[in-house]
């Protein structure tokens, strides 16, 4: 990967009213607010471990190794970072190949799916894709095309996972996707969505403004991606309604990077607010920007955004839960406070996504199936 133009290390800003989370060292390294040489050798080992847990090791490597300071780092650390970079490159490679294979399938069916999340970042050659790890391929198709597409995918070697009757019902009827599919040979995981967010969600949005701006992906012409503002808002809604946060910091960091890249376009900030208003996502926008600010520090371009409007007390409370739950250092220490925060966020996420009468039944079902598998 060729090194990009590296900005000088910025002086950290401490916006009024924001508390710095403990995991700030990792956040500040990633956003180049801290020089890698300012971190002690012992601390670096922890940082690297946190980054790995958050799937951010590739990005950390990319940010750190490109600088002039890199040569002065501990050689063993440099070696670990280079290996992490290599792993991220492997992810890029696999994602591109998977998109290549999927393009062949959709050429046959005649559809132009919209790529979402990581797949979109990769296919559209966005900055957020650099050093990124990928999990599933997410794509959005028209609901009436679903049976046709499902068949075509099965013929192409994608086998459905989670085939219990309950799971099928849960995913299809109440979520916004068919149960995940997995390629039998390549092992790649595929999520086919037919709505941007769940049908029953309490976050009631109007989809049309989000789908209006679709454009062809730069590196995968068989697919479309969402426009910049919708892409950002989609990522925000996802984080906002999430119930589990295994890579919470990473997802918030994605939002941070998308913001930085898109705000280079003239008037993006106003456009973002407009689309948010049209789609009914203003409160989501305001809160996720606040969370982003707490974790990664504010940058002056966003002072016009409604982020500095006071959050309501419940919203401030949720913001603190997010801060604790997403803190990578708390994760490393296995703090009980974090576990509690995550538990509450789990309930909140489900509450946001499902009406009450379904919620109790669903949570009971989840609890039953998790009882046997005592996990970390």
């Amino acid at each position, binding site marked *: 990967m060729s090194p990009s133009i590296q900005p000088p290390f910025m002086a950290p800003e401490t916006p009024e009213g924001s508390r710095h989370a403990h995991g700030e060292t990792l956040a500040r390294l990633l956003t180049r607010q801290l020089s890698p040489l300012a971190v002690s*050798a*012992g601390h*670096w*080992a*922890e940082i*690297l*471990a*946190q980054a*790995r*847990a958050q799937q951010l090791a590739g990005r950390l490597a990319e940010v750190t190794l490109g600088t002039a300071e890199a040569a002065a780092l*501990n050689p*063993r*650390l440099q*070696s*670990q970072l*280079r*290996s*992490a970079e*290599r*792993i991220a*490159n*492997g992810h890029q*490679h696999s994602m591109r190949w998977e998109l290549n294979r999927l393009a062949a399938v959709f050429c046959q069916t005649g559809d132009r799916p919209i790529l979402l999340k990581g797949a979109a970042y990769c296919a559209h050659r966005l900055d957020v894709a650099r050093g990124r790890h990928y999990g599933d391929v997410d794509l959005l198709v028209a609901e009436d095309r679903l049976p046709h597409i499902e068949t075509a995918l099965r013929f192409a070697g994608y086998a459905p996972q989670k085939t219990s009757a309950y799971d099928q019902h849960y995913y299809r009827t109440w979520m916004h996707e068919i149960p995940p599919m997995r390629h039998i040979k390549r092992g790649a995981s595929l999520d086919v969505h037919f709505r941007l967010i769940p049908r029953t969600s309490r976050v009631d949005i109007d989809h049309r403004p989000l789908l209006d701006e679709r454009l062809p992906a730069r590196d995968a012409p068989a697919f479309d991606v969402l426009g910049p503002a919708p892409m950002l808002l989609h990522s925000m809604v996802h984080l906002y309604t999430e119930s589990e946060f295994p890579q919470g910091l990473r997802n918030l960091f994605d939002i941070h990077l998308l913001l930085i890249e898109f705000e280079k376009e003239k008037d993006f900030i106003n456009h973002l607010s407009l689309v948010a208003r049209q789609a009914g996502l203003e409160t989501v926008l305001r809160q996720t920007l606040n969370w982003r600010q707490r974790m990664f520090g504010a940058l002056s371009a966003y002072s016009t955004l409604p982020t500095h409007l006071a959050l309501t007390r419940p919203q401030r409370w949720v913001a603190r839960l997010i801060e604790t739950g997403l803190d990578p250092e708390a994760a*490393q*220490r296995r703090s009980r406070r974090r576990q509690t925060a995550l538990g509450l966020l789990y309930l909140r996420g489900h509450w946001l996504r499902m009406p009450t009468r379904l919620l109790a039944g669903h949570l009971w079902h989840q609890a039953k199936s998790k009882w046997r598998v005592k996990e*970390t």
Partner: protein
Amino acid sequence: MTAPTLASLSLKEIKSRLRSSRLALDIPPYRPIIGCREPGFAEALQAMYYDYPLTGAQGFHEVSLEMMHWGSVWRFGRRQLKLGVNGNFPFNPLPLGQAYPMFEWGLNWCITNYLHERITFHAAGIGYLDAENRPAAIMLPGVPGAGKSTLTAAALERRFTLLSDELCLLSPELGTLLPIPRPISLKDASIELIRARQPGARMTSPVRDTTKGTVAHLQPPPPTEIDNLVEPVARLLVFPRYQRGARLACRPLPTGQAMLRLADQSFNLHLHGETGFIALVRLMEGVRTFELDYSDLDSALDCLERLAAEDPLQ
């Protein structure tokens, strides 16, 4: 070598450092920090790594391994051990008493997961000096059960040195293998077999009922020049296959086949792209490749020695 070794610490001091996760050793390719409170672990560690240098507990330790109790909150549940790797827990817990094998497996996992500057192969490696006194090596790739660990342990009785009983690390730039001398893991019947052959050698007490059967570790020869390990070039690629009662058979293997079989045993070739492929090709151009079926260790070792001696001058 001026650094103090583990031998300079008393068992009591070792246990104390392990309890507070402050014991750091130089175990190529890493300098892990180790923490464990299980009884018996300190003794096993002392026996196996007696001659390995200590390193300071400060500094950059890319690997920290902690064998911790799990399930202590649920007092009525079975207590188990969990392996913490740098604060994360990638594995399912294991029964108490398996702390030492867990440590060794954990270290291997850290190599295959975090070390990608080299191409890692699931293969044993033994070193020797060729006719011109240059460092050379035999790679012994194999699926589990092929007997490569036992063969490796026995090879040390002859004039072979230990590169690894499990992982060969090939440098794509230099084409050499990095020695990672560590205790050799022996399973089931091999334990008694090697004990009979090497009565003076130190071994950990066998641990039963692991996922790999009964496991014990054999102390490696003292690592000389650990700061400056000599990296040999592989000259022989031998695919061993232990079969009870089989007659010794050493068959040349076509290079193409050998290359594909070796690639099959690689953990991270796919991360090295074209460079990796070329490195593999260059490796194959420099090795002679064989299949070795055996049931008697000594005959197999005679065969390996013969192959090493027959090495045509380059």
